[in-house]
């Protein structure tokens, strides 16, 4: 039996499974940080500690970081699952020296925001380096001098591949406008190709290639420019799994497969461009054929993620109104046979809790 299949077998038994829900901040992971012997390497704008975990002492050095966007917690949970598994599979860890920053933006994590406490997107700060968190990442990178970087994120619910929702997407970012395939980029493409091959039997058609327009201010593009193969991992939305439990599992699996690919040199760059590019084709809820003010329309709802009482609540907002044939819903409901009396007006950008209630939609919080 293959090692990664064994990961799938015992994933629910891993200690990291104690980290649950979408709201993940420093305190949530503190006992795991202790388990992994994490050390504080710096602090955030609001003086929260930023930790690094060191694992293994093999020849291949890999730097990984997660939650540089504070609200992208699935990536962190997937990462912690992968690390928990690695900690007990010495043969898998043997070739590597890993340095992992599991939560680069602890202020954003505490506030459940993408940005840091100064409202700066750390993944648009690679050149300016105005923030302590981005400076810390870049300093760590230079001091550690890794052979690979894994940049771990969550993506919004809007992404699909072909007709399917996109559970995971990957990118080997470009280092220039021309998207030159440098040796570093080819190496990252090769690892992603291998991950894609490993995922296909399990989650066919749910893997995408993230938008690859060049942005020198993104960390991935920056490190790629320095000649280090850098992989972007994105954990996405499928169906009604707003806790992203399934996504987390396959995200961790992908991290492990990436390591396997690197240690055994199984790169498959030719597969990379066969992976379909992600499209902004999905919305959270698509209400079709709604009779409203004498016209038949479609209404798309998007959830806004609101932190309240240590949980994330998914609050529906009217996203678009019209004939929305090009969109798909993680949940779609055709209401052509029903009539409703509307007490509220439908307008784009307005709160749609009343509409969700009217249609008996589940209200999620995780």
């Amino acid at each position: 039996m293959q090692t990664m299949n064994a990961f799938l077998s015992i994933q629910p038994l891993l200690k990291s499974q104690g980290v649950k829900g979408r709201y993940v901040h420093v305190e949530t992971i503190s006992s795991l940080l202790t388990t992994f012997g994490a050390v504080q390497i710096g602090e955030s704008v609001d003086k929260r500690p930023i930790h690094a975990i060191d694992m293994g002492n093999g020849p291949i050095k890999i730097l990984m970081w997660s939650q540089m966007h504070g609200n992208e917690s699935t990536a962190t949970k997937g990462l912690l699952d992968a690390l928990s598994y690695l900690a007990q599979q010495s043969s898998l860890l043997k070739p590597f020296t890993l340095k992992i920053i599991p939560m680069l933006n602890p202020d954003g994590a505490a506030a459940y925001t993408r940005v840091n406490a100064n409202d700066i997107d750390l993944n648009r700060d690679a050149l300016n380096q105005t923030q302590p968190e981005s400076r810390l990442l870049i300093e760590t990178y230079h001091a550690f001098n890794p052979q690979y970087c894994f940049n771990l994120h969550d993506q919004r619910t809007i992404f699909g591949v072909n007709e399917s929702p996109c559970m995971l997407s990957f990118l080997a970012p470009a280092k220039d406008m021309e998207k030159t395939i440098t040796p570093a980029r080819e190496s990252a493409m090769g690892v992603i190709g291998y991950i894609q091959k490993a995922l296909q039997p399990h989650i066919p058609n749910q893997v995408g290639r993230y938008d690859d327009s060049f942005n020198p201010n993104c960390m991935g593009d920056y490190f790629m420019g320095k000649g280090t193969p850098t992989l972007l991992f994105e954990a996405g939305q499928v169906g009604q799994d707003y806790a992203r439990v399934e996504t987390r599992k396959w995200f961790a699996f992908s991290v492990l497969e990436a390591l396997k690919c690197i240690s055994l040199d199984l790169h498959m760059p030719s597969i990379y461009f066969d992976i379909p590019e992600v499209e902004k084709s999905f919305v959270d809820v698509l209400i079709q054929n709604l009779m409203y003010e004498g016209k038949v329309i479609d209404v798309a709802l998007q959830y806004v993620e609101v932190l309240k009482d240590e949980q994330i609540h998914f609050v529906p907002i009217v996203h678009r109104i019209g004939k929305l044939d090009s969109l798909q819903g993680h949940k779609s409901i055709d209401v052509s046979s029903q009539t409703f009396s509307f007490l509220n007006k439908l307008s784009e950008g307005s709160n749609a809790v009343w509409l969700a209630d009217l249609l008996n939609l589940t209200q999620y919080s995780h």
Partner: protein
Amino acid sequence: MTKFKLDEIDHQILDILIDNMRTPFTDIAKRLLISAGTVHVRVRKMEDAGIIKGSSLTLDYTKMGYSFIAYVGIFLEKTHQTKYVLERLREIPYVTVAHITTGKFNIYCKLRAKSTEHAKDIIFKIDDIDGILRTETMISLEESINDKRRLMHTIFNDL
């Protein structure tokens, strides 16, 4: 099974035995105001008819240190390996129940273990069986219902 007729006395005896198989016949006799001999004859009759197959031991697994329950779904490489895999599963005493199922998995089984660590070892043993592609584990958080007595009462009431 040919339809077996139970009278009121049989029903009352069964109700008592379902709740506690070890209730002495003399106690049953006292509660039902019949003789111990009658109880003996009735029970014997039901055993001969194959209604009562025997009694089994109910163990407090938690007290014995086996507080961990997990369900493991097994994907086989090929379905003709089912029999072989089941034989191997039978060699693992911690696997207490196994079903061949429709749906996502080929085999679905229950295991009891001492701890998470122990469960992990058992699952790796299962993973090592030839013919198993991979498995998925679901941990039991709480065994809320594990009780056939309500079903037995219902079955006998309907008889």
